[in-house]
């Protein structure tokens, strides 16, 4: 009789729950996972190497494409690293705008996560609910940067532009009459801040709606509770950050522990889990959305009252005023230098980490004083989380692997870079 062997299953990269291009080799005993071996690299685009041949500012759009679900947070870490090397101050209004958009990004990311996680576990409706709300937030992205996803809005020294005074409106068309588009345009009649204010007052109710659908749903709980438990010790040893670490009960959040920008001026709480299972991570992320909404609201209120510059006035870093450029020699030279060879960053090395929706996203740069980085290293949270796949999935069933991938919230743009 032949020896009994386990069943090896190639999970992905063409798999509906692979969240992009995850390829996992699963060793199964029946449906029980004996070993999970994630393979990465299918989305490798050499971002770190590419950055070495681009000027500092040209790499900003690359950052959007790392974790393509939390675009502005990636830019934030990169811009912060450059600012630290340059030792320039970012205007306070720009800091508030950054915090506001970081939190918008957090909501964007978590909405996508709850949608996909729901879809993986079989609650199809979540994804469509979540995308309804995402639509408003990507419109906010579009309003400030012109792009719905890859914004490139944060720049070393501040943000690209101040917030717009008006929102784009839906237009009447063959398919939508004036009466049909009116409800869509009501919230858009004011400035971007009015629009976001409207969103943040609506959002808690929508979150309640999601929670009614999922939180106490017996099947949802059966699928998530006690699946993929990570003990607090283990979470620390593995280098978990973000909701994965907080889900295990460790109150670590860079926004509180090492406040950057104006996070020390806004009021928010950090939720933590108890057992470190998928359900706790679900609850943590849901609460994070509420807290993000709270921060969003505070930023809106501050930004309404405090106009001011949003870009550093150091024209070695930030482009000068366009009008001044037309009549002023110095401004013209600055513009020319910035647009041809870009800024020069003093020699040195620095690490800047932000509390990204998925965890600690860090940029480590070494500059040799040239107009481009000597070396850029990206610390992606998803990479660390995915590496724990084996110990989280071992002993669970095949369907739980899908739950665990969902609760890790991995995105391959950042893992493969």
């Amino acid at each position: 009789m032949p020896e009994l062997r386990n069943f090896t299953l190639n999970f992905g990269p063409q798999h509906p729950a692979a969240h992009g291009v995850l390829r996992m080799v699963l060793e199964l005993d029946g449906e029980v996972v004996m070993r999970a071996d994630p393979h990465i690299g299918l989305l490798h685009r050499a971002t770190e190497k590419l950055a070495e041949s681009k000027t500092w500012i040209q790499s900003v759009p690359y950052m959007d494409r790392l974790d393509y679900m939390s675009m502005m947070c990636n830019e934030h870490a990169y811009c912060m690293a450059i600012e630290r090397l340059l030792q320039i101050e970012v205007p306070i209004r720009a800091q508030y705008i950054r915090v506001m958009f970081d939190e918008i990004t957090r909501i964007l990311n978590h909405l996508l996560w709850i949608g996909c996680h729901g879809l993986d576990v079989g609650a199809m409706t979540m994804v469509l609910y979540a995308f309804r709300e995402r639509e408003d937030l990507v419109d906010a992205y579009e309003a400030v940067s012109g792009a719905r996803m890859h914004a490139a809005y944060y720049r070393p020294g501040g943000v690209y532009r101040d917030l717009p005074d008006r929102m784009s409106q839906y237009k009447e068309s063959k398919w939508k009459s004036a009466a049909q588009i009116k409800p869509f345009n009501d919230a858009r009649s004011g400035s971007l801040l009015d629009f976001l204010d409207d969103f943040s007052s609506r959002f808690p109710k929508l979150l309640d709606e999601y929670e009614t659908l999922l939180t106490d749903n017996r099947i949802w709980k059966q699928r998530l509770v006690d699946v993929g438990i990570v003990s607090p010790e283990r979470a620390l040893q593995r280098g978990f950050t973000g909701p994965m670490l907080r889900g295990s009960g460790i109150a670590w959040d860079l926004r509180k522990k090492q406040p950057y920008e104006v996070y020390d001026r806004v009021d928010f709480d950090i939720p933590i889990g108890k057992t470190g299972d998928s359900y706790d991570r679900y609850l943590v992320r849901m609460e994070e959305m509420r807290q993000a909404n709270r921060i969003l609201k505070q930023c809106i209120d501050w930004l309404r009252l405090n106009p001011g510059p949003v870009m550093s006035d150091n024209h070695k870093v930030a482009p000068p005023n366009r009008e001044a450029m037309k009549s002023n020699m110095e401004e013209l030279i600055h513009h020319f230098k910035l647009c041809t060879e870009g800024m020069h960053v003093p020699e040195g090395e620095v690490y800047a980490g932000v509390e990204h929706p998925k965890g600690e996203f860090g940029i480590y740069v070494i500059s040799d004083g040239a107009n481009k980085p000597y070396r850029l290293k990206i610390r992606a949270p998803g990479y660390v989380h995915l590496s724990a796949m084996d110990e989280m999935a071992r002993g669970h069933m095949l369907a739980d692997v899908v739950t665990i991938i969902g609760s890790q919230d991995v995105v391959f743009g950042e893992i493969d870079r």
Partner: protein
Amino acid sequence: MVDALQGLLQGLFGSVFPLVWALLKIILIIAPLLLAVAYLTFWERKVIGWMQVRIGPNRVGPWGLIQPIADGLKLFLKEVVVPTGADKSVFLIAPMFAFAPALAAWAVVPFNDTLVLANVNASLLYIMSIGSIGVYGIILAGWASNSKYALLGGMRSAAQMISYEISMGLALVVVLMVSNSLNLGDIVGGQGRGFFADKGLGFLSWNWLPLLPMFVVYLVSIVAETNRAPFDMAEGESEIVGFHCEYSGMAFAVFFLAEYANMILVSTLTALLFLGGWLSPVGFLPDGLLWLFMKIAAVLFFFLWIRATFPRYRYDQIMRLGWKVFIPLCLIWLVVVGCWMMSPLSIWK
């Protein structure tokens, strides 16, 4: 008119007339059924669309009504790819195995007192046995595809359908106990008598109320039996893609037809066994075919509704629910109803 047609055909076909006549009746049942299957897929997409804050198909034809036809045509014109290493004949037979029982069961389904293709005494037994053949289609599909995902789907489905057939069967045993018959027509007829039916509140005399726990068990079991969400782990599109992972074109479409035909079949059974079939819910309205269709539509809506609401169960959780909850519950209720029938409080005299 029917008599005239009958006479005409008798003259035309002579001795093979009974065969032709039966064939004609079969077509009269199957053709509307297939149309209903097509439009059930459309209705599902619409209903789930509305529940998920979107519109659903609305481009092909007025209100998207031609959509199911267009989908069918598309699948029909596609190539049926047989994977290398697959057992070709079994691979192609499997979808028919799944589909044929879903149609064959209709032979004994009554539409009112007289309208039934074959009025056999053991019609419920016939449906139960024909219905359980359907699982072979899925197992064979999973096995013949020579794909690990399909195999897992087939395995899950086999385990699931066998366990839920038991609880479903036990629920039906209770029904036939109180009806004292295996004939579907008689079972419906029995529901038209009783304390409330005499008072003009027929819907309270139907089996669903006195056998409420069995009704719930049956309702959940049929969802599991037809492999529909939240018990759709044989398909489990985000886990293992499903037993029909390797199927394409018409072979795939036949599995889909089978799934929806089965849904309609079990909904019809629910309507007949627990919801009083063609009986009118209140005394002052006449009984009729329309009531049956409305009840079927209501049960089908329930199928679609839970699909839009619930996450998917895990394999072992489904098994636990089936074996540790439903089967003991059915067995206990079987005894309870037995005692009830023997006691002076019996309402089924």
